[in-house]
């Protein structure tokens, strides 16, 4: 710091002299380079003023006392500016620490919440889940049970970022401790509801849909806790059918009960689950209509399930100018036999 000042003091003085004599823009340009270097080296404004005073004393040894005093006064006025500037450094460091931490946590979350698509004959599964910020407040999970049964969980924490992520890790460990494959969907939700209600403060809640797909029986059994409705695409009629369910969100009522719904799934039908980050995509200030979403899905309906969801995501990513406003999760299962 001291060296930077000393190294530049002669130069400053020469530029000052040049400017006073000729008002040359070049001198001001060179001065700009010096002042940039000063800021980089944390030289504070009061030190700059001091440097200026010394330069003036060297250029004008006969300088009147009043001048010197006026400059000391000015110097005094800049001490607080120096203090404020030092906060920039401090804040920048703080911010970097936080950002780095969040990025590590986001990676960890990916590992923690990771789930594998079950590979089963007769069913083609596609899934995409993209967080709006670094951490994902959407959750999805697959389990493979006996007889080819597939368990599907999809959930959305109301809230985003770190708190939502913490909340999701709770869901994950709770669900891990259940004999999921044999427990009926409504029981899974009823149990989770108790965990959430007990552990999370009341301002936060979770919507969730839990389903068992039973290929042998050609059935889908599911329960929903206030979650965005899913859809069945009927191959026969080429129409989408909304899966209408009722059920209170997790975490608001200690003893909530959930109804179980059962649907028939036929060959080539598609089961579609999603979060509101999909159904409430925005185009500018306008929310898209359900019809629009279904039309986009229909556009890619003949593709393999994974390509289907990838294409739908890309469509809405572009529509939203590549800035997701909410976490985006879309799951598709096609009954192939």
């Amino acid at each position, binding site marked *: 710091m001291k060296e930077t000042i000393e190294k530049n003091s002669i130069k400053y003085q020469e530029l000052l002299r040049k400017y006073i004599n000729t008002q040359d*823009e070049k001198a001001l340009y060179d001065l*700009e380079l010096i002042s940039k270097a000063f800021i980089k080296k944390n030289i504070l404004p009061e030190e700059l003023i001091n440097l200026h005073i010394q330069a003036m004393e060297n250029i004008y040894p006969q300088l009147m006392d009043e001048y010197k005093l006026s400059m000391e006064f000015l110097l005094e006025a800049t001490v607080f500016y120096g203090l404020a500037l030092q906060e920039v450094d401090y804040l920048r460091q703080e911010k970097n620490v936080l950002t780095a931490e969040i990025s590590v946590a986001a990676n960890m979350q990916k590992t923690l919440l990771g789930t594998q698509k079950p590979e089963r004959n007769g069913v083609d599964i596609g899934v995409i889940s993209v967080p709006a910020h670094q951490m994902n407040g959407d959750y999805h999970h697959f389990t493979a049970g006996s007889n080819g049964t597939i368990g599907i969980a999809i959930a959305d924490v109301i809230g985003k970022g770190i708190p939502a992520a913490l909340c999701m890790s709770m869901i994950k460990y709770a669900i891990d401790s259940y004999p999921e494959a044999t427990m009926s969907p409504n029981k899974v939700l009823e149990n989770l509801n108790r965990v959430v209600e007990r552990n999370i403060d009341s301002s936060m809640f979770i919507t969730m849909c839990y389903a068992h797909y039973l290929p042998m029986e050609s059935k889908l059994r599911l329960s929903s806790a206030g979650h965005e409705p899913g859809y069945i695409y009927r191959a026969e009629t080429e129409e989408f059918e909304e899966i209408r369910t009722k059920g209170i969100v997790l975490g608001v009522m200690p003893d909530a009960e959930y109804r179980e719904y059962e649907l028939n799934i036929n060959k080539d039908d598609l089961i579609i689950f999603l979060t509101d980050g999909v159904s409430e995509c925005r185009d500018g200030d306008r929310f898209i209509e359900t019809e629009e979403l279904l039309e986009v899905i229909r556009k890619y309906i003949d593709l393999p399930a994974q390509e289907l969801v990838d294409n739908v995501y890309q469509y809405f990513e572009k529509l939203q100018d590549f800035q997701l406003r909410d976490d985006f999760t879309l799951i598709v299962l096609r009954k192939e036999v």
Partner: protein
Amino acid sequence: MNPRSCVNIHKEWDIVGARQLGREMAKEIGFGTVDQARIATAVSELARNIYLYAENGQVCFEYIYTNSQKGILMIAVDTGPGIKDISSVMQDGYTTSGGLGAGLPGVKRLMDDFDIESTVGEGTKIKAIKWIR
């Protein structure tokens, strides 16, 4: 259409020329000392970006008038590499990192209005206005 004065930027010395033109025009239309200094600093940033990163480019100035205000508009155009991720370049704090576009958040602060268009491989066009208060 207002007359427009331009400076081509090829060598470092041209940055000084651009500053001088900007400062003189600012002074003439009635900007005070502080704003003259800010305008000159903004010119430096734009001209330096061209000098460092683009083959060809120029910085132009013109006066602008509305019913209630007058001011100066500066336009920096280049056929340089273009900026890929404008939103990250425009983030504050980016200033410290150097590189193409590093000084742009500063320009935005020094001026009143700021607008940027950039196409990778084609170039960048920046418009910035300062109004007389």
